[in-house]
């Protein structure tokens, strides 16, 4: 054994002793080998203490060797690339790795919080529900203290520099788990011609075969694995995904897999570094990797897209992908995830140095580390004897195998006796000694009653206690898929029963225990799935493997102790959350009898290991207490994720600038170059205003407004929705949708139209134009564009299929450039227009095709500003050029580009509403004074709703204009309005009453003050020289001239006068010139 790694075996294992890797653990420099996990390297260095439990802060060591590990929850890495809460058993060792324990203050070795353990009796299940209530105001303090001990690791504080991505894939058969059953299932399916994906969470395929001493087909198991993986790699349609955890089985056979692209088995120094790797950086090294580009499997690095020389020269800019989310639609699924060994529930079974038997075998056989020198093996089944044999083989002393069964084990038991291992049949380990490390085990006779008290008959000194309580098949994905579970009394475990989706289980996850059975079950599962796909199963025979005699497992859920369960040293069921047998007893005593209540009350199964070790034991103990059978107590419903997955991989590449599409108009780059800040309007970026040197928004907007009112402005209105509606029934269709009499519109006319929801509330508005007898051009609001088209199509397709109308979106084809202001006509004239633009020839609310500057356009004489204005519809590909020509032509009129803010001011001066700003889904057209738009001659969507009693109320909130009494104050949008200023003062007086009973923040609730409306739009009007506002006010339309009050926060209520909502050019002459 090497001095640096005292527990490292001199030979064997799958580690590369020629490649030492240095790492740090809690500041100590240690060394392991390539091929190690962090856990195996820690054991090699004789590190026992890796954490503290959550509540009682008891010292904890490594218990398991995989996804089930509850204790070794570490912080890996530092800074922005730190990763909290990784299980040491699942972290491949790499050079320079930095790991820290996450619990305990000041450190894991000496933890002040360990006092909790001393007072553990006070901290029984649910204790926090019973205290910290008095005095009431102190809960904040209590909670502050409680929160200080929250959590394991810490989130980084800087944004994640790493990249993640999603990958969609389809297959005939997805095999989850690459152990003996999974390999055989995949091989059978692949050889039968199916498209196969095989995923396994470990670095290497093989599962338990990598940690056993068995032979398969006459070869050492690991060699057989390599051969099968080779064979799979040669199949054209087989994709191999190591380091890939199938964590979610969703509806309709959709599964999600998290692939850790940089967890390399070679432990290369750069595995986690962002800059040092070949471009794609993910999965280019050892082993065979899926190369999704052609559905084949690429062998080795040379064949991989990541690694070619081609990719080399931009490596300093390209981030390698850290993790990849595979979104898989599988026609059939084989679940071969193996099983989890259960701990035994005896006193102090959480002491460092108490380990699962399967883990001990894994440490020895796969990683060549010896976790102890003198062991006691405690079991209720045969499998633990393997660990005893492995320990002996590796040079450790097995002081005793303590087997609860009077008959002991089968063939493995005989082997143990042959090796001279003492076997104590009909005995149990009732307690262990040692605090930060096991120092001995107390042995007692087992009489078959877990609730009896026993006297230990002997104590054996040891530094390792190996335990096995039997195996629970990993039925997580089967259950996630909706499949049922059956309790198997002979195997003492839940087995997958009926599936409701297209999946079958195989191997240890299907309750098979021997290697030979698992291999055969894999073949069966593979053949079964391909048959369902209509393929002929390839005749593959399961390879030969030893099948040994085993004696049946015996139920041993709670191990008896020197005192009853309430008073004996703690017997842990859930290690991470410190749930003990006494806690479950307490829960039942207090009436929490349903398994879900027990779990929630005791936190059983709510740790980061999600009860992989403890749930079955907990249910069995509960069943015992209640005198019920385990299936009567119920099963657990498994939810994703099988093991935790990073937020980053779930989000994929859609973060940062790719979070959501930014939609840009064809003129966008001009706006950007002009320095316009952008307003985010849904997915669009629209220019907000165009500041000149040193201008703030107010100055810029005032200038832009005056330019439009006095000369000419230009605006990009391209984001409006545009729809071509055509067909013989188009009039009838639009009559049903719009509220006005569409049929009365003559060809070439425009009209302002509104549409309502069936509830009568205003949904969208816009100008429509009749392009022909059977053809209309509809415009919608920016935000409503997609919704309106969907809405129209829905009515057309689902309700009125007899109407012959085609709707085509033209939103993406046309830009709309609004040229507005008294000089707009001169700008167009100057540019050269092939039609007469004078008011006679081309009056207000008309549309005409035209040629402007030689470019075909459609001109609309419509106005959203109340000025003489033209909206130019032009193909996007020419829009920027047109914009620039207009700017040129308008130079002599100081044509002024304006943004959304000026547009809002101009339309508010005219009292035009913005749907979604001046309305909110509770506003009818009547409320907006749009009665004249409501036809009496026809039905239209939402019309009937307007007759409902509530819509006829006279005190509904109605659109009005408001003028501030001081002629200065621009009312903040969203200001609430009250009838009398006095009510606010009275409200404040009432506020001096005592605080509401129970308020912890000294908040003094007041009597509500009735509100009569609110300000929806409010601006300083540059051309009027005073502020204006639009508001919705109860009964407002009949209250013109009345004074109400704006309740301004922190100020006296400001009197405001209700006026008509049109502030400028009430007669509307300016747009008709």
């Amino acid at each position, binding site marked *: 054994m090497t001095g640096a790694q005292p527990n490292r075996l001199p030979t064997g294992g799958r580690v590369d002793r020629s490649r030492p890797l240095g790492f740090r653990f809690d500041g100590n420099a240690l060394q392991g080998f390539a091929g190690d996990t962090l856990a195996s390297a820690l054991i090699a260095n004789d590190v026992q203490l890796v954490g503290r439990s959550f509540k009682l802060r008891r010292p904890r060591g490594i218990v398991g060797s995989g996804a089930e590990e509850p204790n070794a929850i570490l912080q890996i890495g530092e800074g922005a690339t730190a990763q909290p809460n990784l299980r040491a058993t699942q972290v491949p060792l790499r050079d320079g790795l930095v790991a820290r324990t996450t619990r305990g203050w000041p450190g894991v070795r000496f933890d002040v919080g360990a006092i909790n353990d001393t007072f553990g009796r006070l901290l029984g299940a649910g204790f926090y529900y019973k205290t910290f209530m008095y005095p009431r105001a102190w809960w904040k303090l209590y909670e502050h203290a409680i929160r200080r001990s929250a959590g394991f690791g810490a989130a980084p504080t800087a944004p994640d520099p790493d990249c993640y991505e999603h990958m969609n894939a389809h297959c005939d058969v997805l095999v989850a788990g690459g152990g003996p059953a999974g390999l055989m299932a995949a091989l059978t399916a692949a050889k039968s011609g199916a498209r196969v994906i095989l995923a396994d969470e470990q670095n290497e395929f093989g599962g338990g075969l990598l940690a056993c001493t068995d032979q398969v087909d006459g070869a050492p198991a690991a060699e057989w694995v390599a051969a099968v993986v080779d064979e799979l790699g040669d199949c054209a349609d087989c994709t191999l995904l190591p380091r890939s955890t199938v964590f979610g089985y969703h509806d309709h056979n959709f599964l999600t897999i998290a692939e850790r692209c940089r967890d390399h088995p070679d432990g290369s120094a750069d595995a986690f570094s962002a800059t040092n790797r070949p471009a794609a950086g993910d999965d280019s090294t050892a082993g065979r990797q899926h190369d999704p580009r052609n559905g084949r499997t690429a062998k080795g690095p040379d064949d991989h897209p990541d690694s070619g020389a081609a990719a080399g020269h931009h490596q300093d800019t390209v981030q390698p992908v850290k993790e990849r989310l595979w979104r898989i639609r599988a026609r059939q699924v084989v679940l071969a995830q193996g099983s989890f060994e259960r701990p035994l529930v005896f006193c102090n079974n959480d002491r460092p140095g108490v380990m699962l038997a399967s883990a001990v075998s894994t440490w020895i056989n796969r990683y060549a580390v010896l976790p102890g020198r003198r062991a006691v093996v405690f079991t209720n089944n045969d499998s633990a004897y393997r660990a005893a044999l492995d320990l002996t083989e590796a040079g450790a002393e097995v002081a005793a195998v303590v087997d609860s069964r009077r008959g002991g084990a089968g063939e493995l038991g005989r082997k143990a006796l042959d090796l001279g291992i003492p076997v104590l049949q009909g005995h149990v380990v009732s307690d262990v000694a040692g605090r930060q490390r096991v120092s001995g085990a107390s042995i007692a006779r087992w009489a078959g009653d877990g609730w009896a008290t026993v006297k230990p008959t002997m104590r054996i000194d040891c530094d390792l206690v190996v335990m096995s309580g039997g195996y629970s098949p990993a039925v997580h994905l089967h259950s996630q898929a909706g499949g049922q579970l059956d309790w198997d009394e002979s195997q003492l475990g839940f087995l997958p029963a009926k599936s409701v989706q*297209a999946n079958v289980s195989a191997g240890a996850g299907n309750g098979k225990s021997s290697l030979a059975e698992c291999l055969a079950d894999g073949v069966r599962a593979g053949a079964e799935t391909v048959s369902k796909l209509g393929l002929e199963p390839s005749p593959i025979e399961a390879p030969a493997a030893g099948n040994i005699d085993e004696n049946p497992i015996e139920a041993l859920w709670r191990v008896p102790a020197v005192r009853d369960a309430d008073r004996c040293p703690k017997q842990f069921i859930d290690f991470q959350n410190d749930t003990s047998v006494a806690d479950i007893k307490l829960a039942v005593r207090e009436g929490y009898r349903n398994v879900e209540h027990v779990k929630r009350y005791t936190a059983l199964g709510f740790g980061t290991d999600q009860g992989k070790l403890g749930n079955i034991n907990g249910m069995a103990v509960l069943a015992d207490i209640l005198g019920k059978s385990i299936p009567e107590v119920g099963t657990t419903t498994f939810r994703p994720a099988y093991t935790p997955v990073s937020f980053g991989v779930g989000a994929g590449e859609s973060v940062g600038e790719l979070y959501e599409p930014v939609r840009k108009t064809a003129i966008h780059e001009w706006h950007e170059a002009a320095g316009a800040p952008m307003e985010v309007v849904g997915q669009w970026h629209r220019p907000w205003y165009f500041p000149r040197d040193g201008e703030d928004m107010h100055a810029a907007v005032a200038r832009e407004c005056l330019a439009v009112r006095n000369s000419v402005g230009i605006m990009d209105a391209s984001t409006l929705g545009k729809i071509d509606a055509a067909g013989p029934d188009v009039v009838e269709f639009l009559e049903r949708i719009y509220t006005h009499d569409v049929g009365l519109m003559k060809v070439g006319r425009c009209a302002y139209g509104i549409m309502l929801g069936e509830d009568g509330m205003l949904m969208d508005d816009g100008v429509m134009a009749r392009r022909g007898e059977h053809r209309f051009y509809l415009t919608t609001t920016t935000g409503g564009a997609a919704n309106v088209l969907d809405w129209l199509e829905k009515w057309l397709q*689902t309700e009125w299929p007899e109407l012959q109308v085609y709707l085509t979106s033209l939103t993406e084809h046309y830009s709309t450039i609004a040229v507005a202001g008294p000089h707009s006509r001169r700008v167009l004239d100057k540019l050269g227009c092939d039609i007469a633009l004078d008011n006679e020839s081309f009056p207000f609310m008309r549309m005409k095709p035209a040629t402007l500057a030689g470019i075909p356009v459609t001109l609309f004489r419509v106005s959203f500003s109340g000025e003489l204005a033209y909206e130019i519809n032009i193909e996007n590909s020419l829009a920027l050029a047109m914009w620039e020509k207009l700017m040129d032509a308008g130079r002599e009129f100081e044509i002024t580009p304006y943004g959304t803010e000026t547009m809002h001011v101009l339309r508010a001066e005219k009292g035009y509403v913005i749907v979604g700003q001046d309305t909110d889904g509770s506003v009818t057209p009547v409320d907006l004074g749009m009665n004249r738009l409501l036809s009496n001659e026809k039905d239209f969507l939402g019309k009937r*709703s307007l007759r409902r009693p509530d819509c006829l109320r006279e005190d509904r909130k109605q659109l009005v204009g408001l003028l501030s009494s001081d002629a200065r104050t621009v009312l903040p949008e969203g200001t609430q309005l009250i009838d009398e200023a006095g009510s606010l003062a009275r409200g404040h007086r009432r506020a001096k009453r005592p605080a509401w009973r129970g308020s912890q923040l000294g908040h003094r609730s007041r009597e509500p003050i009735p509100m009569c409306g609110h300000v929806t739009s409010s601006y300083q009007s540059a051309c009027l020289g005073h502020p204006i506002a639009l508001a919705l006010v109860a009964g407002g339309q009949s209250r013109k001239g009345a004074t109400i009050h704006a309740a301004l926060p922190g100020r006296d209520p400001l009197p405001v006068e209700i006026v008509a909502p049109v502030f400028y050019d009430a007669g509307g002459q300016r747009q008709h010139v």
Partner: protein
Amino acid sequence: MLLIDCPWCGSRAETEFSYGGEAGIVRPADPDALSDAEWADYLFNRTNPRGAHRELWNHAQGCRRWFGVERDTVTYRIARSFTLPDAAGAADGGVERDFETGDPTDAEPGDRR
């Protein structure tokens, strides 16, 4: 993520579709003849069953056609999807899905592959 059979385009992922609620709610021919309560029933009340549900989906990212789906609201299994009556009032019989293989069981409507 559901796998939905568009009667026109074939099986596509749920993300390509938008949901349209309960199918078969017919707009009253003469809304004015209805009482407020009858109008409210049309407007707001829904069957909302646990179990088989006939509902509307739109293949928003595909052919933009609305069609019907019969889906179980507990198991989320889709029994079939069907086209809506067209002008002639004809609708097809729909696509039945075999949940063992995940494949449509019968000849596919339209001309899709």
